[in-house]
């Protein structure tokens, strides 16, 4: 990808295998939205499929409200808490390669740990989703893969000049991928209906 105006870094890979990785968000509570396309070194492309915020030590934080009326002022009043918490998110790998050699299948190696992570800008989303071959990877990945796929397509459609046409083509690809699962197919279609 063109690095002239690299998009801002939003996280860092903290665990990875070939088909997925987990990254930590730079800012607390600021994981990229479900279904968004992210890119890390490789380059490797992935779709965000889950996110969470938890205590760094792995224990469940104890609630202690002390008069503040909203979250922001509560955190401001207890600045040490930011260091005890972290936001991480999971992503399903859906492709790899430079734009000329963009591949919509799994890369030969997992994403490197500590590799920086960027949210793909609209043009890149449009370019990547020109081919819908990645839907197969998406559908067979996470537990809530149908929700992820629907979210991903909704976001990607906004990057295309004719969102409805894009969703129609994507819908047809889904129909081909789910030939024997009409209920599943119609459920996804209801979620992406323009």
């Amino acid at each position, binding site marked *: 990808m063109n690095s002239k105006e690299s998009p801002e870094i939003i996280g860092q890979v903290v665990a990875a295998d070939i088909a997925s990785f987990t990254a930590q968000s730079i800012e607390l509570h600021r994981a990229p939205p479900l279904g968004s396309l992210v890119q890390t070194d490789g380059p490797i492309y992935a779709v965000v499929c889950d996110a969470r915020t938890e205590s760094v030590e792995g224990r469940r934080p104890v609630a202690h409200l002390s008069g503040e009326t909203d979250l922001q002022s509560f955190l401001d009043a207890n600045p040490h808490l930011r260091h005890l918490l972290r936001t991480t998110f999971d992503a399903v790998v859906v492709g790899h390669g430079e734009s000329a050699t963009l591949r919509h299948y799994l890369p030969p190696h997992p994403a490197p740990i500590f590799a920086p992570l960027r949210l793909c800008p609209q043009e890149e989303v449009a370019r990547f989703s020109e*081919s819908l071959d990645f839907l197969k990877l998406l559908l067979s990945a996470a537990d809530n893969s149908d929700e992820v796929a629907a979210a991903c397509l909704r976001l990607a459609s906004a990057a295309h000049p004719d969102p409805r*046409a894009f*969703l*129609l*083509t994507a*819908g*047809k690809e*889904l*129909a*081909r991928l789910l*030939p*024997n699962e*009409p*209920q599943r*197919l*119609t459920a996804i*279609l*209801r979620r992406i*209906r*323009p």
Partner: protein
Amino acid sequence: MNDHDKPESQTTPDRLGLVVSGSLAGGLDVRLDSSRSVEEMAVGRYVTVQGHRSRFFGIITDVELRAANRDIPWSLPEATDDFAREVMAGTTTFGSLRVVPYLQVRATADAQPEPAKTVPVHFAEVRDASQEDVERIFGQEDESHFIIGSPLDMEVKVCLNYQRFAERSNGVFGKSGTGKTFLARIVLASLIQKSNAQREADKRVVNLVFDMHNEYGWKGTREGGSGEVKALKQLFSASVAVFTLDTESSRRRQVATDAVVEIGYDEVEPEDIEVLRETVNLTDLAVEAGYTLERRFGRQWIEKTLALDPSDEEEREFLQRESIHDSSFRNLRRGLRRLERLEFLRPHTEQNSVQTILNYLQSGKNVVLEFGRHGDNITAYVLVANLLTRRIHDRYRQQKEAAMGDRAQEPIHLVITIEEAHKFLNPQLAGQTIFGQIAREMRKYNVTLLVVDQRPSGIDTEVMSQIGTKITCLLDSENDVDRVLEGVAEKRELKSVLARLESRQQALIFGHAVPMPVVVRTEEYGSEESYGRFVERPFRERLEEIYSEG
């Protein structure tokens, strides 16, 4: 991306879909592109299939709704919205076409269409046939091709090959009111026009039309509209003569006739009576009695038979001697009495109608014989058509044999048009009548038939198989359809095409004069423009000839 995954936006607008399975014998299954609706398709339409090495031409013979998995459409929620429906069209649910490939053109520049001997590869693209495709297959109008109509949904014209059409007997079929007469008139006018344009004598044809309902000579009738259309003599005054059997009717209809046909009893032979067996209910023995009496009485046999009185002792004995049973005699006499009522039959006439007709034909003039009122009398029609044709055919045979292979001496090729052909060509009669013989002997003696019939199931199978080109409109019954399509390779497919013709002015054409079957909207006939097609062209050509000579 595979070709079949191409989003439809990348395909051309005339693309219909892709070949997904099939066989040469059973036809191709074509998956319709999801952008195409089954509702725009029509059985009978022409398509081309671009294979790897060849281009194929075929006809849509069926349209079907299919699903990738047969049960899926049944398990979908009732309330599928437009978007879901649109998504599933072409993925979960499909429109499919059945296409029979008929012709194949190889990729070389000068390749001619030839019968398809294989099928195109998987995922070959199927398109609507273009105007150029149709022209390439059927040829453009010229001195050896005449226009018969246009394929469904197309402006381009379909032509029949004049030579190939003329060299065999042909048929026009269809139930009442479908446009047989209009078609036959277009065919006859075209034959006359093309024949006039031929330079070599042996390529010319001349027509003899037994015009049962007075529709081919001067003018024909049209349901609704102005009610009248021009017939052959108005289009080709110099090359058509109208004969009549009924002067009074011709006068009343203000038709200028060229000759009146009368027939003497003494010209009628027992063979001419035999074909009437069914129409006047003659028994076999009565027919036989006719032969016996003719041997006995000679040419006067009818008159003398009618004068016989079996109550007279002597005459009864005479019949007994000839071993003619009384009931057979009565049966025969009753039959002959029905002929007595026909005014064009005289005890004797000086004119020789057969010779007159032959003289016209041999000078290249087409003859239309109007039956006037007698057209409603099937006995009169069968008797006259059969009698005249027998004599004319006889003379043709003599002349052809005398020519001994010298083409210049041969008689000009004659096409005889008969309506209600099953009356002459039914299985009981086809073996005996002259028409059955002509149909079977092909053009051995330079005579062929144009049969027009609304009940082809009544026509003998063997005769039917000799018919070169069949032009068939919608038919009444399954039997008729079966008989017309008997022996055709793609019978089942064409059957569904035939069954779906419109009830008027549409026809399925197949056989000798076309490289592949075609459904046409018959050329409009009856407007000044339609007449102009027949008149202007030879005139213009003649002018050009004059100028080029001068």
